[in-house]
Protein backbone atom coordinates (compact mmCIF):
# COMPACT_ATOMS: atom_id res chain seq x y z
CA UNK A 1 0.00 0.00 0.00
CA UNK A 2 2.73 2.53 0.92
CA UNK A 3 5.01 3.60 -1.90
CA UNK A 4 8.03 1.32 -1.60
CA UNK A 5 10.48 4.24 -1.74
CA UNK A 6 9.43 5.03 1.84
CA UNK A 7 9.73 1.51 3.18
CA UNK A 8 13.44 0.67 3.14
CA UNK A 9 15.32 1.10 6.40
CA UNK A 10 17.41 4.03 5.15
CA UNK A 11 14.25 5.92 4.17
CA UNK A 12 12.57 5.18 7.49
CA UNK A 13 15.66 6.34 9.42
CA UNK A 14 15.72 9.53 7.34
CA UNK A 15 12.01 10.24 7.93
CA UNK A 16 12.38 9.55 11.66
CA UNK A 17 15.36 11.89 11.90
CA UNK A 18 13.53 14.66 10.04
CA UNK A 19 10.48 14.23 12.24
CA UNK A 20 12.58 14.41 15.39
CA UNK A 21 14.41 17.55 14.32
CA UNK A 22 11.79 19.52 12.35
CA UNK A 23 8.68 18.11 14.07
CA UNK A 24 7.04 17.49 10.73
CA UNK A 25 7.57 15.56 7.53
CA UNK A 26 5.80 15.69 4.17
CA UNK A 27 5.76 12.62 1.94
CA UNK A 28 4.41 12.96 -1.61
CA UNK A 29 3.19 10.05 -3.75
CA UNK A 30 2.71 8.33 -0.42
CA UNK A 31 0.53 5.38 -1.35
CA UNK A 32 1.05 3.29 -4.45
CA UNK A 33 -1.27 4.05 -7.36
CA UNK A 34 -3.59 1.08 -6.91
CA UNK A 35 -4.08 1.70 -3.23
CA UNK A 36 -4.69 5.42 -3.75
CA UNK A 37 -7.22 4.60 -6.43
CA UNK A 38 -9.13 2.19 -4.11
CA UNK A 39 -9.10 4.70 -1.27
CA UNK A 40 -10.27 7.45 -3.58
CA UNK A 41 -13.13 5.26 -4.79
CA UNK A 42 -14.20 4.43 -1.24
CA UNK A 43 -14.12 8.06 -0.13
CA UNK A 44 -15.73 9.45 -3.26
CA UNK A 45 -18.68 7.07 -2.93
CA UNK A 46 -19.41 8.32 0.57
CA UNK A 47 -21.95 11.04 1.23
CA UNK A 48 -20.57 14.32 2.54
CA UNK A 49 -22.76 16.58 4.67
CA UNK A 50 -22.19 20.26 5.35
CA UNK A 51 -20.78 21.20 8.74
CA UNK A 52 -20.86 24.90 9.47
CA UNK A 53 -20.56 27.17 12.45
CA UNK A 54 -19.95 30.52 10.78
CA UNK A 55 -17.32 31.84 13.18
CA UNK A 56 -15.44 28.52 13.41
CA UNK A 57 -15.63 26.38 10.29
CA UNK A 58 -17.37 25.51 7.08
CA UNK A 59 -16.68 22.22 5.25
CA UNK A 60 -18.29 18.90 4.29
CA UNK A 61 -17.75 15.73 6.30
CA UNK A 62 -18.50 12.10 5.62
CA UNK A 63 -19.97 9.76 8.17
CA UNK A 64 -18.86 6.77 6.09
CA UNK A 65 -16.21 5.21 8.31
CA UNK A 66 -15.12 2.54 5.84
CA UNK A 67 -12.14 4.61 4.74
CA UNK A 68 -10.66 4.17 8.23
CA UNK A 69 -9.94 0.53 7.41
CA UNK A 70 -7.36 1.71 4.91
CA UNK A 71 -5.52 3.56 7.68
CA UNK A 72 -5.58 0.84 10.31
CA UNK A 73 -3.99 -1.69 7.98
CA UNK A 74 -0.95 -3.28 9.70
CA UNK A 75 1.55 -1.91 7.17
CA UNK A 76 0.40 1.67 7.72
CA UNK A 77 0.32 1.41 11.52
CA UNK A 78 3.73 -0.29 11.63
CA UNK A 79 5.14 2.42 9.37
CA UNK A 80 3.83 5.10 11.72
CA UNK A 81 5.20 3.29 14.76
CA UNK A 82 8.62 3.01 13.15
CA UNK A 83 8.91 6.66 12.17
CA UNK A 84 7.45 7.84 15.48
CA UNK A 85 9.44 5.35 17.54
CA UNK A 86 6.44 4.58 19.71
CA UNK A 87 3.50 2.20 19.90
CA UNK A 88 0.14 3.56 18.71
CA UNK A 89 -2.89 3.00 20.91
CA UNK A 90 -5.64 4.43 18.72
CA UNK A 91 -6.18 6.91 15.88
CA UNK A 92 -9.16 9.27 15.66
CA UNK A 93 -10.08 9.94 12.04
CA UNK A 94 -11.99 12.55 10.08
CA UNK A 95 -12.55 12.98 6.34
CA UNK A 96 -13.48 16.48 5.24
CA UNK A 97 -14.09 17.95 1.83
CA UNK A 98 -13.22 21.58 1.11
CA UNK A 99 -14.50 23.58 -1.84
CA UNK A 100 -15.19 27.21 -2.69
CA UNK A 101 -16.37 29.09 0.43
CA UNK A 102 -15.02 26.55 2.96
CA UNK A 103 -12.55 27.32 5.74
CA UNK A 104 -11.64 26.69 9.35
CA UNK A 105 -10.71 29.42 11.83
CA UNK A 106 -8.56 29.47 14.91
CA UNK A 107 -10.84 29.94 17.88
CA UNK A 108 -10.07 31.27 21.35
CA UNK A 109 -11.76 28.32 23.00
CA UNK A 110 -9.78 25.76 21.02
CA UNK A 111 -6.35 24.73 22.28
CA UNK A 112 -3.87 22.27 20.83
CA UNK A 113 -4.44 18.88 22.40
CA UNK A 114 -0.76 18.11 21.86
CA UNK A 115 -1.47 14.91 19.96
CA UNK A 116 0.66 13.81 17.02
CA UNK A 117 -1.45 14.21 13.91
CA UNK A 118 -1.34 13.38 10.26
CA UNK A 119 -3.04 14.76 7.19
CA UNK A 120 -3.57 12.97 3.92
CA UNK A 121 -4.75 14.88 0.86
CA UNK A 122 -6.83 13.61 -2.01
CA UNK A 123 -7.54 15.83 -5.02
CA UNK A 124 -7.40 15.63 -8.77
CA UNK A 125 -5.72 18.99 -9.20
CA UNK A 126 -5.21 21.85 -6.82
CA UNK A 127 -3.37 25.13 -6.98
CA UNK A 128 -2.31 26.99 -3.84
CA UNK A 129 -3.79 30.19 -5.29
CA UNK A 130 -7.23 28.58 -4.65
CA UNK A 131 -6.58 28.76 -0.88
CA UNK A 132 -7.21 25.64 1.18
CA UNK A 133 -3.66 25.43 2.51
CA UNK A 134 -3.27 24.19 6.07
CA UNK A 135 -1.50 26.75 8.26
CA UNK A 136 0.26 25.98 11.52
CA UNK A 137 1.03 29.46 12.89
CA UNK A 138 4.54 29.74 14.32
CA UNK A 139 6.43 32.32 16.34
CA UNK A 140 7.97 33.68 13.16
CA UNK A 141 6.77 32.07 9.95
CA UNK A 142 3.79 29.71 9.71
CA UNK A 143 4.23 26.15 8.53
CA UNK A 144 2.12 25.85 5.37
CA UNK A 145 0.97 22.57 3.88
CA UNK A 146 -0.60 22.82 0.43
CA UNK A 147 -3.15 20.25 -0.70
CA UNK A 148 -1.69 17.86 -3.25
CA UNK A 149 -2.84 14.51 -4.58
CA UNK A 150 -1.52 11.61 -2.47
CA UNK A 151 0.39 13.86 -0.04
CA UNK A 152 0.95 12.60 3.49
CA UNK A 153 1.98 14.99 6.24
CA UNK A 154 2.74 14.20 9.84
CA UNK A 155 3.14 16.80 12.58
CA UNK A 156 4.58 16.36 16.07
CA UNK A 157 4.40 20.02 17.13
CA UNK A 158 1.90 21.64 19.44
CA UNK A 159 0.54 24.43 17.26
CA UNK A 160 -3.13 24.76 16.37
CA UNK A 161 -3.98 24.86 12.68
CA UNK A 162 -6.45 26.37 10.24
CA UNK A 163 -7.49 25.71 6.65
CA UNK A 164 -7.34 28.88 4.63
CA UNK A 165 -10.54 30.07 2.95
CA UNK A 166 -11.07 28.44 -0.47
CA UNK A 167 -11.71 31.23 -2.96
CA UNK A 168 -13.68 31.37 -6.20
CA UNK A 169 -10.61 30.63 -8.33
CA UNK A 170 -11.14 27.00 -7.26
CA UNK A 171 -14.32 26.88 -9.35
CA UNK A 172 -15.88 23.45 -8.81
CA UNK A 173 -12.64 21.81 -7.72
CA UNK A 174 -12.29 20.39 -4.24
CA UNK A 175 -9.94 18.40 -2.07
CA UNK A 176 -10.44 15.87 0.67
CA UNK A 177 -8.44 16.13 3.84
CA UNK A 178 -8.19 12.96 5.87
CA UNK A 179 -7.06 13.80 9.37
CA UNK A 180 -5.75 11.42 11.98
CA UNK A 181 -5.03 12.19 15.61
CA UNK A 182 -2.71 9.62 17.07
CA UNK A 183 -3.04 8.48 20.65
CA UNK A 184 0.44 7.35 21.58
CA UNK A 185 2.94 8.10 24.32
CA UNK A 186 5.45 10.76 23.19
Amino acid at each position, binding site marked *: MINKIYLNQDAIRGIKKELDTKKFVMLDEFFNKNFYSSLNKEISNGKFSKREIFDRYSFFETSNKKFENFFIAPQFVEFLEEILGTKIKTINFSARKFQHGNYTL*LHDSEKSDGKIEFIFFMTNSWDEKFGGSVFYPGKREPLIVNPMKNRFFIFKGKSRKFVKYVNNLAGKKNFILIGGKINAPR
Partner: protein
Amino acid sequence: MNIKKFSKPFKTILIENFLDIKDAMKIFSELKKEKFELKESDLFKFKQTKDLQFSKNKILRNFYSFLEKDFQKNAETFFGKKLSGKIDFAGTLYEKTDYLLPHDDRLESRKIAYIYYLSSLGKNDGGELVFYSSKNNIPIKISKRNFPKFNSIILFEVSKKSFHSVSEILKNKKRYSITGWLH
Protein backbone atom coordinates in the same frame (compact mmCIF):
# COMPACT_ATOMS: atom_id res chain seq x y z
CA MET B 1 -28.56 62.40 3.35
CA ASN B 2 -30.72 59.32 3.76
CA ILE B 3 -30.69 57.62 7.17
CA LYS B 4 -31.86 54.06 7.85
CA LYS B 5 -31.87 52.51 11.30
CA PHE B 6 -32.05 48.81 12.16
CA SER B 7 -32.30 47.06 15.48
CA LYS B 8 -31.94 43.50 14.16
CA PRO B 9 -29.79 41.48 14.18
CA PHE B 10 -28.00 44.21 16.16
CA LYS B 11 -28.22 47.98 16.36
CA THR B 12 -27.10 49.51 13.06
CA ILE B 13 -27.34 52.81 11.25
CA LEU B 14 -26.82 53.29 7.53
CA ILE B 15 -26.39 56.80 6.13
CA GLU B 16 -26.40 57.24 2.38
CA ASN B 17 -25.03 60.39 0.70
CA PHE B 18 -23.09 60.96 3.88
CA LEU B 19 -20.87 63.83 2.66
CA ASP B 20 -21.14 66.37 -0.08
CA ILE B 21 -20.28 64.39 -3.22
CA LYS B 22 -17.33 66.67 -4.04
CA ASP B 23 -15.84 66.08 -0.59
CA ALA B 24 -16.36 62.32 -0.96
CA MET B 25 -14.60 62.37 -4.34
CA LYS B 26 -11.68 64.27 -2.82
CA ILE B 27 -11.36 61.81 0.04
CA PHE B 28 -11.48 58.91 -2.41
CA SER B 29 -8.85 60.51 -4.61
CA GLU B 30 -6.53 61.13 -1.65
CA LEU B 31 -7.09 57.72 -0.11
CA LYS B 32 -5.91 56.02 -3.30
CA LYS B 33 -2.55 57.78 -2.90
CA GLU B 34 -1.95 56.08 0.45
CA LYS B 35 0.11 52.91 0.70
CA PHE B 36 -1.99 49.75 1.16
CA GLU B 37 -0.31 46.68 2.61
CA LEU B 38 -1.54 43.10 2.40
CA LYS B 39 -3.03 41.82 5.67
CA GLU B 40 -3.67 38.12 5.95
CA SER B 41 -4.69 35.69 8.69
CA ASP B 42 -7.08 32.79 9.19
CA LEU B 43 -9.89 35.36 9.29
CA PHE B 44 -9.12 37.75 6.44
CA LYS B 45 -7.22 38.74 3.35
CA PHE B 46 -7.30 42.40 2.27
CA LYS B 47 -5.08 45.45 1.98
CA GLN B 48 -4.95 48.21 4.55
CA THR B 49 -3.23 51.55 5.17
CA LYS B 50 -1.65 52.55 8.45
CA ASP B 51 -3.85 54.56 10.85
CA LEU B 52 -4.66 57.65 8.78
CA GLN B 53 -5.29 60.06 11.64
CA PHE B 54 -1.53 60.70 11.44
CA SER B 55 -1.45 60.88 7.65
CA LYS B 56 0.42 63.74 6.03
CA ASN B 57 -2.66 64.20 3.88
CA LYS B 58 -4.72 67.15 5.12
CA ILE B 59 -7.98 66.05 3.49
CA LEU B 60 -7.85 62.67 5.22
CA ARG B 61 -6.91 64.28 8.53
CA ASN B 62 -9.83 66.70 8.16
CA PHE B 63 -12.22 63.80 7.66
CA TYR B 64 -10.84 62.20 10.80
CA SER B 65 -11.42 65.46 12.71
CA PHE B 66 -15.01 65.57 11.46
CA LEU B 67 -15.62 62.04 12.74
CA GLU B 68 -13.89 62.81 16.01
CA LYS B 69 -15.71 66.06 16.77
CA ASP B 70 -19.14 66.22 15.19
CA PHE B 71 -20.01 62.74 14.13
CA GLN B 72 -18.99 60.96 17.32
CA LYS B 73 -21.57 62.92 19.32
CA ASN B 74 -24.36 61.77 17.03
CA ALA B 75 -23.13 58.18 17.30
CA GLU B 76 -23.15 58.45 21.10
CA THR B 77 -26.75 59.62 20.99
CA PHE B 78 -27.97 56.98 18.56
CA PHE B 79 -26.25 54.04 20.21
CA GLY B 80 -26.68 55.31 23.74
CA LYS B 81 -23.04 54.65 24.51
CA LYS B 82 -20.50 56.91 26.13
CA LEU B 83 -17.45 57.04 23.88
CA SER B 84 -13.87 57.78 24.91
CA GLY B 85 -12.92 59.85 21.88
CA LYS B 86 -10.48 57.28 20.55
CA ILE B 87 -11.15 56.40 16.91
CA ASP B 88 -9.33 53.89 14.72
CA PHE B 89 -9.20 55.18 11.16
CA ALA B 90 -7.65 53.24 8.28
CA GLY B 91 -8.19 52.77 4.57
CA THR B 92 -9.14 49.26 3.47
CA LEU B 93 -9.03 47.77 0.00
CA TYR B 94 -10.55 44.45 -1.04
CA GLU B 95 -9.69 43.08 -4.46
CA LYS B 96 -10.56 39.84 -6.25
CA THR B 97 -10.50 36.84 -3.80
CA ASP B 98 -10.16 39.10 -0.72
CA TYR B 99 -12.57 38.44 2.17
CA LEU B 100 -13.30 38.82 5.85
CA LEU B 101 -14.83 35.76 7.52
CA PRO B 102 -17.51 35.87 10.26
CA HIS B 103 -16.47 37.34 13.60
CA ASP B 104 -17.93 39.66 16.23
CA ASP B 105 -15.24 42.43 16.34
CA ARG B 106 -14.97 42.34 20.11
CA LEU B 107 -11.48 43.43 21.06
CA GLU B 108 -10.19 45.79 23.71
CA SER B 109 -12.42 48.86 24.05
CA ARG B 110 -14.22 48.82 20.69
CA LYS B 111 -17.79 50.05 21.03
CA ILE B 112 -19.01 50.96 17.56
CA ALA B 113 -17.67 49.74 14.21
CA TYR B 114 -17.94 51.92 11.12
CA ILE B 115 -17.34 51.55 7.40
CA TYR B 116 -17.35 54.54 5.09
CA TYR B 117 -17.68 53.19 1.55
CA LEU B 118 -15.75 54.74 -1.30
CA SER B 119 -16.83 52.16 -3.89
CA SER B 120 -20.13 50.81 -5.15
CA LEU B 121 -20.53 47.09 -5.79
CA GLY B 122 -23.40 45.06 -7.21
CA LYS B 123 -24.94 41.73 -6.30
CA ASN B 124 -22.63 39.64 -8.48
CA ASP B 125 -19.43 41.41 -7.46
CA GLY B 126 -19.18 40.07 -3.91
CA GLY B 127 -17.84 42.36 -1.22
CA GLU B 128 -21.12 42.85 0.62
CA LEU B 129 -21.22 43.27 4.38
CA VAL B 130 -23.10 40.29 5.80
CA PHE B 131 -24.85 40.37 9.18
CA TYR B 132 -25.72 37.20 11.11
CA SER B 133 -28.44 36.62 13.64
CA SER B 134 -27.21 34.68 16.65
CA LYS B 135 -28.45 32.43 19.40
CA ASN B 136 -26.54 32.02 22.65
CA ASN B 137 -23.81 34.18 21.08
CA ILE B 138 -23.31 31.76 18.19
CA PRO B 139 -24.06 33.03 14.65
CA ILE B 140 -26.79 30.84 13.19
CA LYS B 141 -28.20 32.51 10.11
CA ILE B 142 -27.47 35.23 7.55
CA SER B 143 -29.80 38.05 8.45
CA LYS B 144 -28.86 40.99 6.19
CA ARG B 145 -26.60 41.87 3.30
CA ASN B 146 -25.40 45.42 2.77
CA PHE B 147 -23.92 46.18 -0.64
CA PRO B 148 -21.26 48.90 -0.64
CA LYS B 149 -22.49 52.19 -2.03
CA PHE B 150 -20.15 55.11 -2.66
CA ASN B 151 -20.38 57.84 0.00
CA SER B 152 -22.44 55.82 2.45
CA ILE B 153 -21.44 54.99 6.00
CA ILE B 154 -22.65 52.12 8.12
CA LEU B 155 -22.18 51.87 11.87
CA PHE B 156 -23.05 49.04 14.22
CA GLU B 157 -22.57 48.35 17.87
CA VAL B 158 -19.89 45.87 18.86
CA SER B 159 -21.26 43.19 21.14
CA LYS B 160 -21.45 39.44 21.66
CA LYS B 161 -24.06 39.45 18.90
CA SER B 162 -22.34 41.59 16.27
CA PHE B 163 -21.35 38.75 13.94
CA HIS B 164 -20.56 39.99 10.46
CA SER B 165 -18.35 39.24 7.48
CA VAL B 166 -17.34 40.69 4.12
CA SER B 167 -18.00 38.23 1.34
CA GLU B 168 -15.26 37.41 -1.13
CA ILE B 169 -14.75 39.79 -4.03
CA LEU B 170 -15.67 37.70 -7.05
CA LYS B 171 -14.87 40.07 -9.89
CA ASN B 172 -11.98 42.29 -10.91
CA LYS B 173 -13.33 45.17 -8.85
CA LYS B 174 -11.88 47.25 -6.04
CA ARG B 175 -13.74 47.86 -2.81
CA TYR B 176 -12.32 50.94 -1.10
CA SER B 177 -13.47 52.10 2.32
CA ILE B 178 -12.34 53.87 5.44
CA THR B 179 -13.00 51.68 8.43
CA GLY B 180 -12.41 51.54 12.13
CA TRP B 181 -14.00 51.64 15.53
CA LEU B 182 -15.20 54.26 17.94
CA HIS B 183 -13.95 53.33 21.41
